[in-house]
């Protein structure tokens, strides 16, 4: 997704879809809880009303809800940002390098760790 964003025009390129590690574990717990609860509620409702499509409709609703909560990079998942050590070479960015190539620095030591 970040690769696709880099192909957009310049003002939109600053968006990113990462979430940090603490956010990743929160997201995993959240979607597991949502889907398990949706399965249990779906099973109980379907059993009481004896309609199987209700069970799977409730499960599908739980799936949609989990996707809405977990897929976009909400600020809640970015509360513990990673503190990268500054790259000593990059502390002197040149104007020529910024305009020549789009976002890629001529420095060979960089390996895609910049998420600012």
């Amino acid at each position: 997704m970040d690769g696709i964003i880099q192909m957009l025009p310049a003002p939109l390129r600053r968006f990113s879809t990462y979430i940090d590690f603490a956010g990743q574990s929160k997201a995993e717990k959240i979607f597991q809880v949502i889907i398990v609860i949706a399965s249990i509620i779906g099973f109980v409702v379907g059993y009481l009303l004896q309609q199987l499509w209700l069970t799977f409709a409730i499960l599908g609703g739980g799936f949609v809800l989990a996707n809405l909560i977990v897929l976009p990079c909400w600020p809640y998942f970015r509360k513990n940002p990673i503190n990268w050590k500054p790259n000593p070479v990059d502390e002197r960015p040149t104007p020529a390098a910024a305009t020549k190539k789009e976002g890629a620095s001529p420095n060979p030591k960089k390996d895609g760790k910049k998420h600012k």
Partner: protein
Amino acid sequence: MHSIWSRANSVFAFTLTAMSAVTFAVFLSTIWSQRVTDVTILATNPRVRVMPDYISESGRSDHAMVSLNIEADVSPIFNWNVKQLFMYLVAEYKTPKNTINQVVLWDKIVLRSERSVVIETNAAPKYYFIDDGQHLRGHENVTLYLKWNIIPNAGYLANAKAEGSYQVKFPSQYVSGRF
């Protein structure tokens, strides 16, 4: 979980696993459900004729005909795990040639969404009742049973035989010509 695609993949795979667990639970919830009810079967006007049958050894076979009356209320069998019921009427009898003969005379598919009371009045059999030989004339003990195949949404197909049968006695004279 670092990118949107890997989060989407995790959520989707977990949902599929949860769905398979729910399906197994649905199957478990109907293991002991009712499979059998009472039915009423009546067969009137039994008649037998002889017909040429080039497949058999002797070249001639008995062909029997009755008029069927079936009353079956199968609504207690339907639950959330039953998709449809395939019911069929079987004539079972014993001959000197074969210990057991089973011939299906009529069948019907009853879906869960349709009326689940089956009433057939003076219906003709759907399939030919042709004997393996010429043993139906005067046969006193041809029994008609109604059986069904319960087709589930999750789990194995169950077979059941209804409570209620009818014994047909065929006349000892052939009918000539067509029925």
